[in-house]
């Protein structure tokens, strides 16, 4: 559950003034909570109150105006003894998640690029346990390895969408957290795509892009962490098991390609361009580059006719050797802050061989 700290703190203060009897925070689980002028202590009090009330997992939203960024590390340190803590910024607020207060994460075997993601996945874990109820047209599929089970609820009409994915039997909190991330990546895609790509999507969702990769070469689920390899195998066994029940042969051709979000598609072309130009300006400012170092020329459609190909150009003063990395960094930034399916392309160059036909 998500609790708005600013709102509750304000209500509490108001009710101190206006409520003579039965004064309390708005939620039963916070009946022992008292805010504090220091928001770090106020949030600590809130978590302790929730634990007293038996609430295992809690998410608290607090505005950055109330709790500035320079105090986030202090908050994390203060809350760490109480359970698995994760912090993430979301639209001018900080969301603090404290999950599974009974267990602590041992991150010793987790590469540094995955630590933050695993913490977050553990704090937000919601796919452990049995599947939700199956609809009449759904089928339950399970796969097991070393007493770890992954279960899928699959629609029975092509493309066999995975409606829900759950895990059980994870042997330690890290494994459970990673399997949860794999389950999240497997949902709402065709079963074949879940089997083919959910594990690598989970890996990329867990990774800190700016941190060094866990291996010097190509990162794959199996070499990033054993739990990712386990999740990948369980999904593939689940797919095979589904096919054996359905009586079909293995469908190998998977062309599932997640479309852009509705919010992006519903924007006008000018609004899309404006949003990208605005975000690019912020990127350039953070990279300490001139505002015209990278120009956004236009947005083109991809092969699905989705407006996701962003054409860019560089100012003359940008050194040639910097351009490829800048493009990849800007693309990652735009994917994170505007729309995940955006792709960057540079202005193409025409063939200089004049005798050729194009």
């Amino acid at each position: 559950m998500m609790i708005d700290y600013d709102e509750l703190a304000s209500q509490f203060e108001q009710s101190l003034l206006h409520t003579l009897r039965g004064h309390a925070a708005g939620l039963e689980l916070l009946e022992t909570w008292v805010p504090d002028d220091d928001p770090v202590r106020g949030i600590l009090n809130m978590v302790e109150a929730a634990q007293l009330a038996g609430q295992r997992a809690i998410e608290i939203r607090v505005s950055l105006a109330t709790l500035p960024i320079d105090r986030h590390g202090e908050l994390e340190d203060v809350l760490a003894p109480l359970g698995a803590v994760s912090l993430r910024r979301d639209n001018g607020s900080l969301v603090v998640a404290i999950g599974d207060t009974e267990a602590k994460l041992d991150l010793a075997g987790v590469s540094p690029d995955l630590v933050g993601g695993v913490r977050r996945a553990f704090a937000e874990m919601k796919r452990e346990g049995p599947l939700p109820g199956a609809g009449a047209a759904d089928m339950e599929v399970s796969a097991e390895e070393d007493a770890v089970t992954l279960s899928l609820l699959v629609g029975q009409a092509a493309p066999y969408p995975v409606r829900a994915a759950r895990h059980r039997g994870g042997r330690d909190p890290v494994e459970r957290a990673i399997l949860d991330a794999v389950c999240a990546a497997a949902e709402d895609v065709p079963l074949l795509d879940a089997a083919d790509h959910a594990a690598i999507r989970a890996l990329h969702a867990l990774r800190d892009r700016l941190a060094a990769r866990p291996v010097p070469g190509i990162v794959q689920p199996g070499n990033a962490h054993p739990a990712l390899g386990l999740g990948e195998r369980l999904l593939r066994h689940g797919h095979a098991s589904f096919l054996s029940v359905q009586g079909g042969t293995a469908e190998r051709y998977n062309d599932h390609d997640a479309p852009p979000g509705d919010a992006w598609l519903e924007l006008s072309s000018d609004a899309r361009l404006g949003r990208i130009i605005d975000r690019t300006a912020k990127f350039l400012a953070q990279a300490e580059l001139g505002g015209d170092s990278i120009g956004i020329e236009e947005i083109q459609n991809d092969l699905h006719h989705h407006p996701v190909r962003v054409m860019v150009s560089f100012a003359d003063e940008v050194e040639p050797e910097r351009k490829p990395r800048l493009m990849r960094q800007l693309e990652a930034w735009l994917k994170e802050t505007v729309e995940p399916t955006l792709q960057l392309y540079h202005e193409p160059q025409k063939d200089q061989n004049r005798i050729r036909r194009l």
Partner: protein
Amino acid sequence: MSSALSEHNELILDGTKIAWYQDRVEAWERGERIAPVTIDMALTRACNYACHFCYAMLQENDRKVITRQVMFDFLEDCAEIGVKGISLVSDGESTISPAFVDTITRGHELGLSMACGTNGFVLNQRKLEEILPAMTYLRINFSAGDSGRYAEIMGVKEHWFERVCDNIRTMMEIKRRNNLSVTIGMQMVLMPEYADQVLPLARLGKELRPDYLVIKHCSDDEDGSLGVDYDKYEQIYDLLHEAEALSDDDYKVVVKWSKIETGAKRSYQRCYGPPFMLQISGSGLVAPCGMLFNERYKKFHCGNICDERFRDIWASDAYWDVMNYLAGPEFNAQTMCGTLCLQHKVNETLDAHVKGHARIATPNGAAPQHLSFI
């Protein structure tokens, strides 16, 4: 694969030899940095031909001049890090580079397998005497069986047809005289509209007697800029079988069926092949593959061998950032790159391996020819 080449210890012209590099595959799977087995490159982007089908038209990027010294440094770096084969094909006509002959001989001295795809026009007897002993294969691009259509399809004067035919005869004569191991072949890049030339070319080959004639598809970019109509290949399957039937003991006509039948579709989304099979433009640009040479794909460009040593480019974070991007979920080979690339069979095989559909295992028996060219 053509029935004329059913044993894997013969030439594999339609497939991949990556199974014979299981150690390298396992190292790749563990996340180690592996050297490419094969690098395909050109010594220049210039060309004296203007072939109607040429993908190089779509590959323009900022050109630099690859000198003899640049190539010597490059070849030394390749030998040092474990590259096995260098093919001079890519996006230009390497034989018109002043560095061509020295590149072949120096590469051979360093223990690299050297090969070339060329229009064959400037390869006179003197040059052939010098390079053929140092080569694994030499392949002549030749997409027509009569001089008029040759001129039209290859974008040259009609009499160039006979010059190249003479050069092929010379190649075979040198090979026989000196009992050389080099494989000499002809290659037809087939767009469906060249169907009228399939049988004339197969018959011409039977007269010229190279080791093989291979007939392959034409690649196109993701937007179909070259205008290849993949649906029309099926209409000429009978012609292609008829061409293959002209094979004899010493001359094989091989159709790359797997790619022609696949058409424009890829079965995979992740691109795993480039770390094993890299491409370099005739501009010196190091990119994962030829589909990504154009400035349009700048985010994938890793460096230029005219500016820095290849071993440093290969060891750089930039190179491995790009390779990881291609192998990651943000890249979709089905929608973000052209059709039937050089790495396609390697990609298919690695994808099936990663998904557990067909794990790579070293086949029993003798290794095929041209093992350095996967």
